[in-house]
């Protein structure tokens, strides 16, 4: 992990269940808590980077709400998400993480032929599929991929033993460590 914000996020998602900081400023136990902090982030982002603020905010909203949508009632240990952001004149970094089921576990319920975490990430970012079938949904990560590219952002998305790196292209590879749940690092 490159910086202190990433280090805190990484420690949060890798910690044993009894050792997680659940009172810190980055922890959002429910969607309501996230929304309050998300609205503050949007306000700050419009002040710092108005030209990018709306799309970046929509991307963050999709990733964060996916965590709640797909893990409600099924969190592994700690409900809710990690959410932090850092803005300077020349850099935006936003980190989201959840200790939920992960992409592979969610998608294999509706597409049993998916064999591993890497395949699951590829499907999630490219195919019209929802882990909550028969509900008609599943457009969020496609929107994320397209707008990461259009806005020249960078996204590192970890789930299980897979890592997807998105910018103007998408590269999916095996990750040395197993990130249970999801970890997303957006930079611009």
């Amino acid at each position, binding site marked *: 992990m490159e910086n202190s914000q990433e280090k805190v996020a990484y420690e949060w998602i890798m910690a044993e269940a009894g050792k997680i900081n659940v009172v810190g400023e980055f922890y959002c136990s429910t*969607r309501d808590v996230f929304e309050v902090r998300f609205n503050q982030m*949007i306000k700050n982002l419009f002040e710092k980077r108005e030209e990018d*603020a709306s799309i970046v905010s929509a991307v963050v*909203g*999709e990733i964060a*709400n996916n965590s709640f*949508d797909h893990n409600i009632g099924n969190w592994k240990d700690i409900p809710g998400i990690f959410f932090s952001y850092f803005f300077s004149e020349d850099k935006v970094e936003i980190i989201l993480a959840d200790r939920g089921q992960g992409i592979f576990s969610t998608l294999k319920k509706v597409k049993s032929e998916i064999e591993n975490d890497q395949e699951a990430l590829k499907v999630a970012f490219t195919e*019209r599929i929802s882990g909550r079938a028969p509900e008609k949904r599943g*457009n*969020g990560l496609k929107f994320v991929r397209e707008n990461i590219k259009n806005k020249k952002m960078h996204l590192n998305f970890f789930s299980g033993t897979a890592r997807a790196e998105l910018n103007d292209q998408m590269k999916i590879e095996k990750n040395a460590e197993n990130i249970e749940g999801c970890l997303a690092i957006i930079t611009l």
Partner: protein
Amino acid sequence: MRIELKKIGDVLVSRPAGREAFLAISAYNLKDLKEDEEIEIDFSGVKVIAPSWADEVITKIAEKFKNVKLLNAENETVQATLKTLREYSDLKI
């Protein structure tokens, strides 16, 4: 009938929020309207909209009514969201 989305909020994200908005719109704005009634969805004042919210509102209104018009939809996030809905949610408008 014109639906001004800014009256719901200027940050429109998440499916639960979209679902709630659609129920309210259905009860207060769309009730008893015929399917060929003109429905104008006005995006003015919207700062952020995401496809999960819009799929619960825009897609559903477009499925129910034949004559839906989108007004003041120039905002970048509105355009990006509509593109995603057209591509992945069969939005026809």
